[in-house]
């Protein structure tokens, strides 16, 4: 009975145009590669990072992979400053990732959690939903910090 219980007031109802909608829905989502700007969803101090290298993967990083990134935008007093090169774990990716039961998941945006070389998160909180693909990648610490697990 999913259809009846759905509260549509969350999404704004547009009176407008099919043309604008059809343009948007044809966006093809791809990997996270060099120059991709990602949102930072922990309280390490950075706000936006730009990917400079995807470790593992010829075409780029996906959900759950680690990347090397450069901090582009940061909060004035935080653990990381602008221009620093950091490691990060992709916790939300707009590109769909296949799950082992055959279905696919995708998120609304691209987001990272900054980690150190050993894989431990620098911040102490994580905002927003995270996938449970991280468990297989051994990022258990991030899962414990997370609010929602998708």
């Amino acid at each position: 009975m999913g259809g009846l219980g759905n509260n549509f007031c969350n999404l704004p109802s547009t009176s407008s145009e099919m043309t604008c909608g059809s343009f948007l829905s044809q966006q093809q989502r791809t990997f996270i590669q060099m120059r991709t700007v990602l949102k930072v969803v922990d309280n390490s101090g950075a706000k936006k990072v730009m990917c400079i290298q995807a470790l593992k993967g010829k075409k780029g990083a996906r959900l759950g992979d680690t990347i090397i990134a450069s901090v582009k935008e940061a909060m004035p007093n935080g653990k990381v400053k602008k221009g620093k090169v950091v490691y990060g774990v992709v916790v939300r990716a707009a590109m769909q990732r296949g799950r082992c039961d055959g279905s696919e998941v995708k998120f609304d945006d691209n987001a990272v959690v900054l980690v150190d070389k050993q894989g431990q998160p620098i911040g102490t909180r994580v905002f927003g939903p995270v996938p449970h693909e991280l468990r297989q990648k051994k990022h258990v610490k991030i899962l414990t910090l997370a609010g929602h697990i998708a």
Partner: protein
Amino acid sequence: MRLEKCWFCSSTIYPGHGIQFVRNDAKIFRFCRSKCHKNFKMKRNPRKVKWTKAYRRLHGKDMTQDSTFEFERKRNRPERYDRNIAENTLKAIKKIDKIRSDRAYDHIKNRLKTGKIQRQKQARKQLEQDIHLVKAPLALAQDSSLHLPKITVNVSQTWTEENQPMEE
């Protein structure tokens, strides 16, 4: 394993099908196929899209309240496996499904009954008015029913071997 419902059309999503979209407020939208997914991306309201279950239930086309729906409620407590219970549940599922589909069918039949009666009345009226188009007035004078008279045709040529055309 859990059988989910599509957010847009309310059909069941079997394992291995569909896409799950997680919004940043942690609300999960599941879609059974790309048709529903694309409609969602277009920001269409399922209550206004004619072929979805949401529309049909809202506009009274399909059955809304029935005791058989209680069996399908989502339960989050896992049950300890018991062979007897599992066996009985499987038998019950079949029976309940049959009952529910019969009731849904009756609901639709009832809904369409008035239209059917109206169409029959109109057809009868038309027949009474326009019977002269198909039945000669002499025949109508002889028997005033609305059926056409039966005509018997005598076939003169018999179907024999010689009369058959040459087949290529």
